[in-house]
């Protein structure tokens, strides 16, 4: 039996046999949790109001999920694939430049737009 013969975590699938898994459950791709999306946990979403932002990056510092993306030392965008909607960024923002909006409202607005078209 070739126990733990795999070396690529990429090919690990739910229906694999135990002996096809990686040796000792090792994971060979650093940071591959990035391909796991936690954004669907969110019930409220942070929305950035650009003209209020002073790019202090407190939101970046206090996001537990690395979901405030900064570029060249400035706020760039939210990573909605991973943001869990905890609301910390909105709370620490000194300029009220982040609104927390209900995902349901956003869904409803989308639906309404669809009906009109």
């Amino acid at each position: 039996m070739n126990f733990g013969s795999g070396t690529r975590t990429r090919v690990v699938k739910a229906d694999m046999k135990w002996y096809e898994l990686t040796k000792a459950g090792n994971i060979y791709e650093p940071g591959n949790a990035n391909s796991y999306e936690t954004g669907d946990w969110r019930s409220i979403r942070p929305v950035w109001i650009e003209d209020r932002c002073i790019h202090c990056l407190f939101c970046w510092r206090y996001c537990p999920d690395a979901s405030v993306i900064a570029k060249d030392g400035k706020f760039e965008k939210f990573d909605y694939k991973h943001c869990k909607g905890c609301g910390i960024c909105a709370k620490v923002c000194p300029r009220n430049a982040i609104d927390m909006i209900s995902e349901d409202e956003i869904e409803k607005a989308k639906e309404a737009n669809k009906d009109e078209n």
Partner: protein
Amino acid sequence: MATLKELSKVEERFVGGHRLCAGCGHGITVRMILNAAEGYNVVVGCATGCLEVASTIYPYTAWKCSFIHNAFENAGATISGVEAAYKALKRRGKVNEEFKFIAFGGDGGTYDIGLQSLSGAMERGHNMVYVCLDNEAYMNTGIQRSSATPTGADTTTSPAGKVIPGKQQPRKDLTAIMAAHNIPYVAQTAIHNWQDVHKKARKALEVEGPAFINVLSPCPRGWRYNTPDIVEITKLAVETRFWPLFEVENGKWKLNYKPKKYVPIEEFLKPQGRFRHLFKPGNEHLIKALQEEVDNRWLALLERCGETPELPPR
């Protein structure tokens, strides 16, 4: 001191996609520490706990660096072993790069279960940093009291009810225990003051030999406060002197922050569901006792730090 502008350009080594609860303090703390480790290759080890189970669910890892998990009770031994192996390989010319070694443990894995392993690693003088992410109970298994849980807190194994009003025992002062190991660097910090966390992480990584940092890392589920208020809650812990910021460098104690005025402990307790029962009529004496404990510990700390032992002005 680096600015956030500069720090935000450092590569993220604890990536999104981990499965810590929304608003968990650990995500913030680990990001701060690894951000401060800028410029170093790091090997991270974790004790079993929230951080470990949420960041390494097979076949995913949130760590963009070498990572090792062994068991609940031996993060100290595991990382010290990796460090010793690294030194041996380096001597033989099999590894040439420079590495730093960081262990993370929760209060369960550090104050209680992993204490002997941590103590041994510190005493043997390994070149490593141990970071305790203290959220004051066993949160991973559903909020059981630990020796870090404050007196009076409601947990599932110290339930506030007719028989007892929450945890009955005082909390262990782990930072002082670590200082008693006479290692080069020991510090206590909290995330509302990111500069303090950053500075201490940097110092801990730079010293030759073992270093220990105790970080207050709130848990919205176990403490039952409004999730977005994490920075405020942590700040109140420091302003009420419940969680003083200090460091012990080569045996010399130094206080890093002195509140300007006397903030009563109620301010820290009130926003948290785990202390709600303390505010019921008839329980005033419990809060009074807690206040006395905080004040006494504060005075003792000031004395150790060579400051005049006095309470802040009311």
